């Protein structure tokens, strides 16, 4: 599985790079617009280790932000299930926050959290949590009638039990949604670093953009692709382990 994922990424990257070079030489563009293969290679050799460190830094924030997003989405979705005023208020708040462009919210984030790790994390969470929230709300509020019926009929169905049933029955969906959102977490962290940090690969991309240095950006994209693939693979592996646990029946995945 590991090899397949990496090969797939390498093919996509190579095709993308080939198209760029084809355009460069086909239209006779200067090295300023699209750098030559040799420059990309030299830049890659010169910066890969430095950039790898930055990508890993970004990845660590993305993973942490991803976990926070999952927790936040779960909490908001659980509270959002409440039919009272607090539930609807929190749900509405979550939807509103999502509708604001991060660039506009950034000054408030700077004031409250400075421009270090906290701001990076917060922006990552803001970008990543909403798709998770929508899925969680969908899953948490959809009754598993055939299981819940007994507990409802015998007055044993607490909100905790219904949540447990719904999570358990939809564990495969949840694993898929969570794995899928890993990419969003990585992108969210890069955006956060682009606008609000002094570290991470997003920050380095911003500098490279200022310098119109596409070679550096291509190097960064290559490393981001590899690291994100590895992160996705780890999540898929964890998902596979969860699915293989006793009690996770085929029915849970239908």
């Amino acid at each position, binding site marked *: 599985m590991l090899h397949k994922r990496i090969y797939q990424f390498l093919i996509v990257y190579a095709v993308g790079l080939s198209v760029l070079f084809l355009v460069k030489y086909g239209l006779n563009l200067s090295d300023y617009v699209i750098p030559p293969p040799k420059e990309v290679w030299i830049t890659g050799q010169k910066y890969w280790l430095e950039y790898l460190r930055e990508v890993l830094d970004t990845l660590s924030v993305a993973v942490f932000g991803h976990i926070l997003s999952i927790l936040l989405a779960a909490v908001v979705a659980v509270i959002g299930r409440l039919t009272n005023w607090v539930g609807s208020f929190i749900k509405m708040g979550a939807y509103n926050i999502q509708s604001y462009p991060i660039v506009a919210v950034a000054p408030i984030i700077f004031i409250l959290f400075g421009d270090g790790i906290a701001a990076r994390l917060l922006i990552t969470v803001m970008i990543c949590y909403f798709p998770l929230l929508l899925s969680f709300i969908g899953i948490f509020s959809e009754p598993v009638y*055939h*299981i819940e*019926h*007994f507990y409802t*009929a*015998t007055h*044993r169905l607490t909100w905790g039990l219904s949540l*447990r*049933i719904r999570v*358990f*029955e939809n564990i495969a969906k949840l694993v898929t949604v969570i794995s899928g959102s890993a990419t969003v977490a990585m992108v969210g962290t890069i955006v956060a670093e682009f606008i609000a940090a002094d570290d991470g690969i997003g920050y380095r991309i911003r500098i490279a953009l200022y310098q119109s240095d596409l070679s550096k950006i291509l190097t960064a994209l290559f490393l981001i692709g590899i690291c994100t693939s590895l992160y996705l693979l780890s999540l898929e592996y964890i998902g596979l382990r969860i699915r293989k646990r*006793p*009690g*996770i*029946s*085929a*029915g*849970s995945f239908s």
Partner: protein
Amino acid sequence: MHIDLEKLSFGHADSDTRVFEEFSHRIEGPGFNALFGPSGVGKTTLARIIAGEMNGFSGKVASSGLSRILYTYNLERLPDWSGIGEHFKAVTPTSQTGFLNELTRIFGLDPYLESRYAQLSLGQQNRANLTRYLVQDFDVLIMDESLANVDEGTKKDIILLVKKRFPDRLFLYISHNVVEVSRYCKNILVVRRPDKSPQILTVSGFDDMGEQEPERETLERIMLEMMNAS
């Protein structure tokens, strides 16, 4: 004890189909009775109305001396995060522990108490589901296809056990199996289409208590009456 259905009317909201049209009927208890009729006639709907699990009907369901009406059906599942034995323990009142053990033995579930629900056969699943209902405190238990996929021998043991153990309760047994309904049930409530009046006809069943084998002619007569009624 009885349940009175007064001027009951019901139609599906998404179509013009009427299921019940202002019909009234008294279901007498106690005893092991049946709700019988062709598919789509409204047996499950009626059962859920009686159990208080459905709205959107007009008329009234009144009962005397029946405070707890439970409805169980064959598609129910137990959560798979633990074995069925653990689930049984979690939902069985302490006073019923002995009865639970008796049930799991007679129902042939003892070897599977560690197993998850999904690992059981369909027949075992139905028995496991019924077990947890039988240990609850109820006055009326409606069993909708609850013994489907259970072999005849075990089915007989289960029904006879239920009848002996709960002589003072009312059971409504929904099944398409004419033979078992005619043999084991006391009153067979044949549910008919809304254009027929009355919409429920009662046929007396053999009400087998396990004391003597029913004669073939008797069962055939009951079955013929059921067919004619529907």
